[in-house]
């Protein structure tokens, strides 16, 4: 095994073959320059790294319920502060929370909002695989428009899949006026590294939203997560950007964005969109992507 990459999350975990999040977790933690305490909301990462009586974690790790990963992080940070003040610990650990999109966009949103507003010193990393994957692919508010999931099936009446738009979590987090947040993608690890370093250096809350393809439920071959993720950014479906003290910066400007179909056609969850009856739906999805990109570019140019 690779010793350097095994520093926090070790080989032997049971994530599906070809899963994307191990590289995200290792890249983010690889930038830590102090000891870390990891807080993990329920989800694939937690379930596949803590199969009793084993653990794949080599640093302090706490699993809390879905709703309260950020509340747990707040408690740890506050306890550390007091222990430090009393001279009982000499060094404070950095607290890093990992949660899936279900645990972040939906169920843990209130505790995340509370912790951001109170200004705790922690980094929250959402690995966004666009659904509740550990329980078998139910839709979340991060699931893209048009995706078929177990709870947005295709049938006689329903031809599209999910009919609602994705929630813009970045804007919600940004509304808390935190010093640093960024959107990254597992396919661009140098960019993720740079963002993790900045986010870990912030005193106070920081947030990373990282694109994490799921071979199992997006339905693409085991070997393809990097290629699928590259297309998400090259079609402008998942732009790479950061917001530092309120200032937007796009980290990768795509001069000639690819048509959204190129991303969609790599995955079985969008297969139905290529039926003749969904021609208009595809056009609409392209418009949606272009519209979002326009808004983001406008924010970045002021």
């Amino acid at each position, binding site marked *: *095994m*690779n*010793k350097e*990459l*095994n520093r926090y*999350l*070790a*080989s*032997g*975990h*049971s*994530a599906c*073959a*070809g*899963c*994307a999040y*191990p*590289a995200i977790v*290792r*890249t983010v933690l690889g930038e830590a320059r102090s000891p870390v305490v990891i807080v993990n909301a329920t989800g694939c990462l937690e379930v596949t790294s*803590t*199969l*009793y*009586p*084993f*653990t*794949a*974690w*080599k640093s302090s790790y706490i699993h809390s319920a879905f709703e309260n990963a950020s509340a747990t992080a707040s408690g740890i940070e506050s306890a550390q502060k007091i222990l430090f003040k009393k001279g009982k610990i000499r060094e404070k650990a950095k607290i890093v929370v990992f949660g899936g999109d279900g645990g972040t966009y939906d169920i843990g949103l209130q505790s995340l909002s509370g912790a951001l507003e109170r200004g705790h010193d922690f980094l929250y990393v959402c690995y966004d695989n666009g659904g509740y994957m550990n329980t078998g692919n139910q839709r979340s508010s991060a699931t893209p428009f048009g995706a078929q999931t177990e709870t947005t099936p295709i049938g006689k009446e329903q031809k599209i899949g999910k009919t609602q738009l994705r929630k813009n979590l970045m804007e919600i987090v940004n509304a808390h006026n935190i010093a640093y947040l960024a959107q990254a993608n597992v396919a661009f*690890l140098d960019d993720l590294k740079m963002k993790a370093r900045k986010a870990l250096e912030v005193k106070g809350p920081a947030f990373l939203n990282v694109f994490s393809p799921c*071979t199992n439920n997006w339905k693409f*071959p*085991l*070997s*393809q*997560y*990097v*290629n699928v993720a590259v297309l998400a950014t090259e079609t402008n479906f998942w732009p790479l950007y950061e917001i530092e003290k309120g200032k937007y910066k796009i980290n990768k400007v795509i001069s000639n964005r690819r048509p959204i179909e190129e991303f969609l056609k790599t995955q079985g969850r969008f297969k139905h969109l290529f039926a003749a009856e969904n021609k208009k739906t595809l056009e609409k999805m392209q418009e949606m992507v272009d519209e979002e990109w326009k808004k983001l570019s406008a924010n970045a140019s002021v």
Partner: protein
Amino acid sequence: MEKGAVIKYDALKAPRTGNWRYLYPEMKKEKCIGCGRCVSFCPEACIELRKEKGSDNKTVKNKARVDYDFCKGCGVCASVCPVRAIIMKKSE
């Protein structure tokens, strides 16, 4: 279930996920340029760059090497290798 037990990582007991594999990555050493792309994308963190002597027995170069105890055979490494130095083969 033990109450108050501390569960520690134990390398010797870590599940050997190599037994999940039905394809395995065959490494074409002579082609590998030591760029490390496969290393960072491998979900199992089971690829290392090792310094190895070239065929002239003098020059030392980085070459990717797989730990088959943990490799699940996903093929991600083969799909990201820029010089096709990794080929997925039916299991050993």
